[in-house]
């Protein structure tokens, strides 16, 4: 149990059209609201939006780190709090996402990631797992909360 959230990472994320639309293509989702301002306005948005899971999936916006600083599984250490063992295998346990306002192509957001809980639980497929719960708050330039994500990460050694 964690008594109060512990911030471990924050970063500025420009919502650029190319990576946001690459995310859409990678997910095989060709929603016109992601690609075309006029079609997005017809759907009631101000202009083109980022796919909802785009900001929920970005754990960092730096150029690095160099390869030798990555964990053995390839994950950048900054993606997760220090309590995640460096040699633990990682799997997504689940998410709770609140979408409070659209994230628009061309905006810039701040993503603040905090550790909020950790616990152990048995899994049918993988034995006993340690779970780490991370909250991401996606804020606009006025500090307005746009998206809140609570990620449960399952780890095993």
């Amino acid at each position, binding site marked *: 149990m964690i008594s109060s959230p512990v911030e471990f990472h924050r970063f500025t994320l420009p919502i650029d059209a190319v990576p946001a639309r690459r*995310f859409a293509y990678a997910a095989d989702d060709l929603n016109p609201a992601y690609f075309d301002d006029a079609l997005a306005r017809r759907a009631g948005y101000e202009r083109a939006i980022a796919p*909802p899971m785009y900001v929920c999936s970005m754990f960092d916006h730096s150029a690095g780190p160099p390869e030798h600083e990555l964990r053995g*599984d390839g994950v950048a250490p900054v993606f997760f709090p220090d309590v995640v063992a460096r040699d633990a295998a990682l799997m*997504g346990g689940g*998410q709770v996402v609140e979408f409070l306002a659209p994230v628009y192509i061309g905006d810039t957001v701040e993503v603040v990631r905090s550790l909020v809980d950790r616990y152990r639980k048995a899994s049918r*497929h993988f034995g006993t797992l340690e779970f780490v719960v991370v909250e991401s708050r996606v804020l606009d330039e006025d500090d307005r909360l746009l998206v809140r994500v609570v990620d449960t990460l399952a780890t095993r050694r």
Partner: protein
Amino acid sequence: MTTERRLVKQPSTVSLFRMSAVMWNAHRVHFDLAYATEVEGHPGLLVPANLLSSYLCELLMSWAGPTTRLVRLSFQNRAPVYAGTTVTAWGREVTRAPADGADVVDLEIGIDRDGVPAVTGTARVLLPRAAPAAG
């Protein structure tokens, strides 16, 4: 009559690679087959959870046309999904109620592979009943 919708997807190794690339995420279970199978014991490349949740978002955001607004998504990963597997994302309305010029719809959602639940959860969408203001 309960409204249900389904969306069939087959996450390919190419989509896994592109998703990892755009996220700048080098987690090897998603693109390195030898690592995924020989080191972590998976039978194939593991489909990342955010790709599965993207399928759910696609289903939900078109629930009643392009003006549908996704409000909340809550899901748990129950079983791993591997590249090349055909999965079905589904949603089933549980309640629909009017509120402030929109219908608030709560749904059960999930993703099944070969009839087995891989993802289960709930969602809420808003269906505007009038032409929405921008935003």
